[in-house]
């Protein structure tokens, strides 16, 4: 008798890779994840602070937008500024990430860009006319950022050195260089007094308007670059499969170097916007750890610049709002980081349900296992 009496262990659920999901379904799932995350934040803050559940969102909204309905727009401008800086860093890392080059060094690249801007503003301020100085500030920060991004890329291309850790370490090297510079210029006071020479001009009603316009232009440019240019296509191919790229005659090393230079250059622009556009000064915390948040913006936005606009707005909203909720209850404003982390984890997790479907085990009648 050949009957096999051994019982087969069958898992309760099994996971199947989906074919491509319709775009609105995928975004429905992502939206659900965001809503779930935001609800969770509301519940946690209601429990911690004792405010009512709905009041939490009221505080968040007022904390971010201020008295917008009474015509006061200053908070709205600040919100726009924070969003575009994060977005700019996100735009910078997007091409590198799309190429599967894990550029965790946006922070350092932006700091070095900002440093170059600060250096020019201080050294050449008053010696060069403004119409020469401002372009010099812009160009030097772009070049500085590009060089800082290029260094890890050279080693990656030549010896396949791990870029995640290399770029990470470069952040701290940059931070210490800034600390050194601030100490020298500030005369031991750890502060550089705002320098007005060489700063970006203020246009319109708010000092943030120019920054917002520049990043808006960058967003469109990056979209066109990634989607419609030949170089953007090469980035996609290298990211999907280096072997394929080599097979169809793409010079992988060249693409890696070029893309990281671009990535660093855009980071340099972000640093320049912060230093020459807003603060007119620099310190170790000018970028404030946003280089890491930017990676998540790029990833969650699926490397689509327009989706990244929404993602950075969402993250800035949560960050500012949650900090306000905690502040108004005398709690520590690091609650902002917890909230942002929570929603990002939700969003990262929900990708699973977009790519795979979970099926319950079906009773198989009459089928021998």
């Amino acid at each position, binding site marked *: 008798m050949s009957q096999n009496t051994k019982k087969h262990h069958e898992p309760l659920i099994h996971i199947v890779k989906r074919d491509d999901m319709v775009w609105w379904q995928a975004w429905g799932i992502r939206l659900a994840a965001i809503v779930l995350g935001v609800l969770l934040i509301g519940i946690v803050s209601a429990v911690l602070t004792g405010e009512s559940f709905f009041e939490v969102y009221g505080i968040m909204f007022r904390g971010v937008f201020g008295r917008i309905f009474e015509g006061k727009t200053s908070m709205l401008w600040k919100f726009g500024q924070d969003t575009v800086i994060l977005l700019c860093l996100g735009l910078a890392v997007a091409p590198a990430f799309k190429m599967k080059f894990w550029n965790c060094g946006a922070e350092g690249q932006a700091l070095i860009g900002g440093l170059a801007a600060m250096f020019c503003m201080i050294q050449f301020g008053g010696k060069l006319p403004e119409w020469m100085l401002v372009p010099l500030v812009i160009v030097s920060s772009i070049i500085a950022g590009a060089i800082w991004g290029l260094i890890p890329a050279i080693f990656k291309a030549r010896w396949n050195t791990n870029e995640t850790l290399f770029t990470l370490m470069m952040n701290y090297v940059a931070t210490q260089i800034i600390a050194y510079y601030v100490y020298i210029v500030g005369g031991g006071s750890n502060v550089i007094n705002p320098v007005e020479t060489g700063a970006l001009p203020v246009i319109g009603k708010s000092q943030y308007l120019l920054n917002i316009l520049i990043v808006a232009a960058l967003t469109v440019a990056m979209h066109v670059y990634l989607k419609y240019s030949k170089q953007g296509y090469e980035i996609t191919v290298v990211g999907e499969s280096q072997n394929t790229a080599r097979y169809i005659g793409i010079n992988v090393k060249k693409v890696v170097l070029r893309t990281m230079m671009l990535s660093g250059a855009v980071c340099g622009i972000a640093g320049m916007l912060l230093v020459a556009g807003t603060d007119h000064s620099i310190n170790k915390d000018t970028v404030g750890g946003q280089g890491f948040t930017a990676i998540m913006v790029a990833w969650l936005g699926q490397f689509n610049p327009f989706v990244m606009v929404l993602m950075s707005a969402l993250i800035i909203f949560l960050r500012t709002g949650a900090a306000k909720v905690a502040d108004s209850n005398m709690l520590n404003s690091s609650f902002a980081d*917890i909230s942002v982390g929570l929603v990002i984890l939700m969003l990262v997790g929900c990708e699973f349900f977009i790519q795979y479907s979970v099926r319950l085990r079906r009773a198989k009648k009459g089928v021998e296992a």
Partner: protein
Amino acid sequence: MIVEFISRAILLSIPLLYGSVGEILTEKSGHLNLGIPGIMYSGAIGGVIGAFLYENACGNDLANMNPFLAILIPLICSILFSVFMGLIYSFMTVTLRANQNVTGLAITTFGIGLGNFFGGSLIKLVDSDLPSIALTKTSKFFKAELPFADDLGWFGEIFLSHDFLAYLAIAIALAASFVLSKTRIGLNLRSVGENPATADAAGINVTRYKYLATCIGSAVAGLGGLQYVMAYADGVWSNNAFGDRGWMAIALVIFALWKPSMAIVGSFLFGALCNANNYVQGLGAETQELFKMLPYVVTIVVLIITSMRKKREHQPPESLGLPYFREER
């Protein structure tokens, strides 16, 4: 002075050692856990919360405190917090197959936020009237040194004057080294990290190994945070004081070439480098800032050299960073 320098370097190196041994265990299962900085923060705050509640329960009176409980409660709380973070990470990356880098960075954001939030709000949350979190009493129990350490001069100060968590760190590193290279479990774990499909075919439960390695690794890393607060900072919590030691621990993994025993040497070197600026004579404050760059520069140099030499035994686990989906082979 040289004795003080060495002793200080050892003290500084212990959190790094915990962090890097934890990360090595995790990476051996094929997971690059960039959440270690956050996990170390949450391990630290877990211990602080435990100790704070216990001190409060004892009426903040040293006489009421049981030395055994004073150590055990923070220790368990710390492990619970960091294992919880490790569970989130492994659920996301193993079960949900999310991108490891992004998940890790999110865990780091979350964990650092958790640490700073509770560190800054604990007093308000439990309606205590203390001015700040200063767990000096619990810290005393943690820092109890061997009674005869002071009698032995320089030998005693360098080797015997440390807190018990420091010795535990070295013990864990040696044990991890033994398990990884000499036991069946270690062999299985390494095979999961090198090639999960092969391991799976050989009948190894890949998912279980990945979960366990990540969670145990997180627990070990979290102890580093606890050691920092209780022994280095004398039980005083201040936000962001732990700094970027978590990232340094991750860098140390490469420096140690994925060997826990090498991590002992590496962490001591890093501890010394972090500390060197205070001991080199005639440094201005601005040069000190440049000196603080040293550990990172050394890491970069090691990173480059190991990638240039390409020795087979010095390479990272083959499938580090890649998700494993059985049906995709």
